[in-house]
């Protein structure tokens, strides 16, 4: 594919056809626990998008300039995780210091997503698929937006669900997982439109 268009293609693929949450089922725990209200899921969605976009860059740099030259690719799991953790912690501290409003809207969610597997997943996919820096950034941004989209849709459904009659055995996590499965099926409709490997 044309190298100028490729990052854009990856971006759209990450949002729709290869949605990290609905096709890889990564990042489920915060998706399930914070999707009760649209307002809070927007905050979490923005936080995830921001962290994914920035940590892909950091991890790409660490991978390319530290791990690859020394043939230490097998250390990527642990290196990626500590970079993500330190970065998220740092950003949280900065936000808390500079803006109370931003902290209330966004910062409070940051500790929740330090250990979100979707964040690590994005960095690992980027390495497996051999993306360059620009593509990685677009992939991270797209994955974050895709996650955002999925949790927004779920929060919308769950707000309606509050007034629905759910069989007692399925209340809470049960019905939420079934809905997530249906959403995944719906998103499968996009598959094949864009091919990224």
């Amino acid at each position, binding site marked *: 594919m044309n190298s100028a268009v490729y990052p854009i293609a990856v971006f759209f693929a990450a949002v729709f056809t290869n949605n990290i949450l609905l096709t890889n089922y990564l990042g489920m725990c915060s998706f399930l626990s914070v999707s009760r209200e649209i307002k809070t899921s927007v905050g979490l969605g923005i936080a995830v998008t921001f962290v994914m976009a920035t940590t892909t860059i950091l991890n790409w740099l660490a991978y390319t300039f530290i791990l690859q030259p020394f043939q*230490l690719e097998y250390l990527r799991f*642990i290196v990626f995780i500590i970079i993500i953790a330190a970065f998220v912690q*740092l950003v949280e501290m900065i936000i*808390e210091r500079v803006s109370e409003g931003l902290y209330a809207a966004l910062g409070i*969610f940051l500790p929740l997503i330090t250990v979100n597997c979707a964040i690590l997943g994005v960095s690992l996919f980027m390495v497996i698929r051999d993306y360059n820096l620009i593509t990685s950034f677009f992939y991270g941004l797209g994955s974050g937006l895709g996650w955002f989209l999925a949790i927004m849709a779920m929060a919308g459904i769950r707000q309606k669900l509050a007034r629905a009659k759910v069989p007692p055995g399925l209340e809470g996590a049960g019905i939420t997982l079934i809905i997530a499965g249906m959403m995944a099926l719906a998103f499968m409709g996009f598959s094949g439109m864009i091919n990224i490997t």
Partner: protein
Amino acid sequence: MLISLLISVGIISAVAVFLSLLMVIADATIGNYGNVRINVNNGTKELTVPGGQPLLRALTDEGIFIPSACGGRGSCGLCKVKVVEGGGQILPTELPWLSDEEKKENIRLSCQFKVKNDLSIQIPEELFLVKQYNTVVESIRDLTHDIKEVRLKLLDPPEIETKAGQFIQFQVPAYELTDEPVYRAYSMASVPSDNSHIELEIRLVPNGVCTTYVHKYLKEGDKVLVNGPYGEFYLRDTDHDIICIAGGSGMAPIKSILLDMQEKESKRKATYFFGARSAKDLFLVNEMKEIETSLEGFTFVPALSEPEEVDKWTGDVGLITDIVAQHVKDGSNSEAYLCGSPGMIDACVRVLTECGVPEERIYFDKF
């Protein structure tokens, strides 16, 4: 081989050290809020604490215990505190626990709210006396087939200051029925003057998290964490006649009140109605009879609602409300202390008000 191993160890350590250094620097610069002052209850107490930490932890470090069941993870919603000044915006993690009125009154969840600038807060006065106590189980004995008496010896702090009738919170550690430590409230049956012990009377409730733990797992020598004292259920210092009514393990706070009166050689007229189903649910009868002989104005009236043949019961028979109605002719000069199930208490409050006891002088502990 060895070299590549050393390189990998070196690289990973270098990355870790670099990031930790970054965090340490950030902690000392961005995360450093200096010391902040907290003004508690309009100057009753002035605290100076390091900023940047949750209010709950800052207060705990200063020896002020806000009741909290989850230990500061924002999942129980108990640790509410009124922040009069310096509060700022309510965080999304607090919202599920606050009602609209509480939001207007600046009530905050103290485990989520971080201390960043000078504050003034308002807490109930009695919380100044609340502390956490490390205790050890000194003895456990069966009072009836389903009620156990648990006697705790205080280790640290070694003494507790209570009023007869108050309650403490008992921490149940994680076990079969609970994934995380939970707290349950129990009235103290011990007399306040014995300030190095706490006695609890705990009735087995099928599948009750704490009661099952106490009845099946707790044994002598076990360590138990409690905090307290709490509660407005204690003997008022007046000249009114006293009516006590209890059922089952509701005996505990009443026993404490009576022992306290006995020690203080109270001259007040007092009647204690204790309701049980049959003789096997009665307990501490001899102790009550003993108090009856030494406490001048005190009468103990145990009553059975469904005595069995084998009981050979000669005392009062009937529902506790009927027994109270028979004995209390004119309650206008009385005050009442009730402890038992909500159903029993509601019924007793009705009967007592009919007998002329003013409603504002009826105190109760529902459980």
